Every structure is written in C-alpha cells, then in structure tokens.
C-alpha cells in the first residue's frame, strides 16, 4: 500500500517535471527561425475547421438544456423566471461555452494528436527525425500548439454565439419570451468582458490540450495496445487539467 503510493507519487512528480520540460522546450522553439507555415495551416484546419460542426452541434443542445433548467430553478426559488435570459447567458459565457468546447476538442483533437504522434513514435519516425537533425518538438509540437491555441479561442467565440442564439430561440418557442425582453435582460447582465474572459479560458485550454497529447504521444509504448493506452491517458489527463484550470480561472476572475 505505502509502496504503491510512494511509487505513484514519484511517477507523478517525474511526469510533471517532464511535462514542464516539454512546455519550456516548446516555448523556446516557437522563436526558432524556420516557422513551418504549411504544417501550421494544416493543423489549424484540422483543429478549427474539422471540429466546428461537432462543437456547434453539441453546444446548441447544451444551450437548450441550460435555459430550460435555469427557468425551472428560477421558478422554484423566486417564483418567476423573468431573469432567465441574463442568468442563462452568464452561465453560458462564464462556464459552458468554453468548457464544453474544450472537452470536445480534447476528445477529438487531443486524442487524434496522441494517436498520430504515438504511431509515429512506435514506427520509429520520431527517431528518424532526430537522425536527420530535426528537433521533434520543433517539427511536431510547435505547429500543433500554436494552431490549437488559436483554434480553441476562435471556436470558443463561435460556441458562445451559437449557444446564445439557441437559448434565444428556445426561450421564444418554449418559455414565451419575446426578442426584446430577451435582449434587454441579456444586456443588463452580460458585459463585453465576459466574452473576453471566455476567450482567455478557451486559449488556456488550447494551451494544455496539444501539450498533453504530444507528451503522451512521445511516451507511447510499442504495439497496438500502447497507442490505445497513450490515447486514453492523454484524454483523461487533459480533461482533468481542463476542469482544474477552469476552476482556477473562475476563481481568479471573480
């Protein structure tokens, strides 16, 4: 019991150290001269364009549920639901838009990157890169990192807008608000800085996802089982990291 606990703690601290090392290397490598535009654009297309439909789809369903549930709660506590647009919009901007987008990106982009880097690792392509004198961090991680930061920020803005629009439609169809009431109530609660906070959240989630996935991809063990395990680990680690960062940022902004 104590032995396994100690082993786990040592492993965890080692992993954290290696992760920070990867982060440092990535940041240093961003400024090294040959900037790989082609790879960057390809990754941006994969991250942002490829995930757009899924994100919009999921987020719109989430928005519908959110506004219905907040109406339910407001009716229960203060017996009327006239504040619902403002409240639901606050919840969407501060919490739901960024987090749901990031969790979706984790499973789509993060898992995809781990699987890709992991299979490169086990087919010894990464060793081949090293032989050619190319730093794998510079070649693989940096374009993915930059692309995901930008992609996640953009997707967060889009997700927030779609979310708001869906809540708007549902509140008219199902809860009986008119457009005017909805917008008036909305502007009373939501400020522009809320959207900015949401963007900051999106960008910080975008920082974590590719680093986590590349980290697990580099550590991939050989064989089909190794790729599966690495992908699972990366998804779990990123999701936990996202929820913790979300908590820290919410705490800091309030």
């Amino acid at each position, binding site marked *: 019991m104590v032995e396994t606990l100690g082993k786990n703690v040592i492993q965890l601290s080692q992993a954290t150290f290696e992760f920070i090392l990867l982060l440092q290397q990535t940041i240093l490598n961003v400024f090294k001269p040959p900037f790989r535009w082609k790879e960057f654009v390809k990754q941006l297309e994969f991250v942002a364009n490829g995930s757009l439909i*899924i994100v919009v*789809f*999921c987020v719109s*369903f*989430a928005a*519908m*549920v*959110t506004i*219905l*549930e*907040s109406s*339910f*709660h407001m009716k*229960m*506590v*203060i017996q009327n639901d006239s504040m619902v647009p403002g*409240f639901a919009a*606050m*919840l969407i901007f*501060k*919490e*739901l838009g960024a*987090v749901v987008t990031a*969790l*979706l990106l*984790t*499973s*789509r982009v993060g*898992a*995809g990157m*781990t*699987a*890709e880097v*992991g*299979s490169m690792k*086990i087919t010894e392509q990464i060793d081949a890169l090293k032989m050619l004198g190319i730093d794998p961090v510079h070649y693989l991680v940096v374009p993915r990192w930059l692309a995901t930061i930008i992609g996640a920020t953009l997707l967060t803005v889009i997700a927030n807008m779609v979310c708001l629009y869906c809540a708007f439609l549902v509140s008219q169809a199902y809860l009986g608000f008119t457009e005017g009431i909805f917008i008036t109530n909305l502007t009373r609660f939501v400020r522009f800085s809320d959207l900015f906070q949401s963007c900051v959240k999106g960008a910080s989630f975008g920082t974590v996802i590719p680093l986590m996935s590349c980290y697990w991809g580099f550590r991939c063990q050989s*064989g*089909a*089982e*190794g*790729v*599966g*395990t690495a*992908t*699972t680990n990366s*998804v*779990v680690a*990123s*999701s*936990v990291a996202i*929820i*913790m960062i*979300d*908590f820290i940022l*919410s*705490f800091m902004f*309030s």
Partner: protein
Amino acid sequence: MQIWRVSTQSFATTGMAGFFVGAIMTVQFTMQMKEFGALGYLGGLATSATIREIGPLLIAFMLSGKVGAFTSAELGTMRVTEQIDAIRCLGADPLQEIILPRFIAIVVSSFFLLGLGLFMSIFGGMFLGGLFAGVNYEEYFRHIPTIVAFPSIVAGLIKCFVFALVLATICTFKGYSTTGGAKGVGRAVVETAVSTMVCIVIADWMTSFMGDIILRLVSGV
C-alpha cells in the same frame, strides 16, 4: 471482475472531477446570487443545478474519456491482435465471452461512479461556499432539502443511467469493429470519444425534455 476493475480505476478521477464541478458551480452561482443578496439559497441552487444538469454532463464527459476510451482500446487491441478470432476458433461466442460482461460492468459501474461524482460535487460546493462566499456549512445545507426535491434527484439518476447505457453501447461497438493495426486502435479510440460525447449531449437534451413533459403529465397541469 470487470465491474471491480472499471470502478477502482476511475474512482479517484471521478471523485475529483465531481468535487471540482461542484466547486465551479458554487463560484458561478455566488457571483449571481450576490446581486440579489440571496446567498442563503446558494447551497440549494448550486446543488440542484449540479445534480440536475451540469454534474451528470461534465462527469459523463470525463468518464467517456476514461472508461470509454479504455474499453475501446482494449477491445480494439484484442480485435487487431486476432484474439477475438481465437476465441471464436475455440468455439465460444465472443459476444457472450467478452462483450457482455464488459457491457454490464460499464453500465453498472458508470452509474455508480456518476452517482459518486454527484455526491462529491455537493461537498465541493460546500467547501467552496465556506471558503469563497462566506456561507457556513449549516447555512449551505439548510436549503438543500427544500430546493433539491425528490424528482430532481430521480432526474439526475435517470440521466446517469442513460449516459451509462450510451457509453457502454458505443465503446463496445467501436472497439469490437476496429480494423487495421495500431493506427486503427488509435482511430477507434478517437471515434469512441467523439461519438460518445455527441450522443451524451443529445441524450442529455432528450432526458431533460422528456422529463419535463412527463412531469407535466403526471402533475396534470
């Protein structure tokens, strides 16, 4: 055995996720309730919102990464290394031998894990309520029974059960139908994670809508 394995592996992750989800919801609700001076309702409201809506959704997302991806990776590996064909050669039905125990195990243990996560979220909320909003613990708990009615808990648990079913179905299917080597396993895991999340969001919407309609029918309004 499968139940034990799935549960123990995800126990800590789920508990922690639940704790943080509760904490986040409390922080958010504090900011809103302060404007009304209604901090007394904080505990009840945050708990109710977490149990009915945000909690199951976010924790199920976590589990789809943890349990779903793990299972489909395992089944995919079995498929790719031809272990499933070997079982068939031995005259056993792979569906019965491999899929069924895993399916049941995932449904049962995800259900309990989600329940655990929701339970932990109450404590997360309580802790942060004390730390952040200055609401002491008794005050936090006082309004929970009045606001979190029995139907809310049932709704939350029904959601958990539906999510568990969705998760189990998708990850066993995707894992079982893997093709093409190590790359195929990676692809199967990615597909599992993505389609599970999409289906969970849809299931969330359906249960909320259906629950609302059924409640209306039952109460006769």
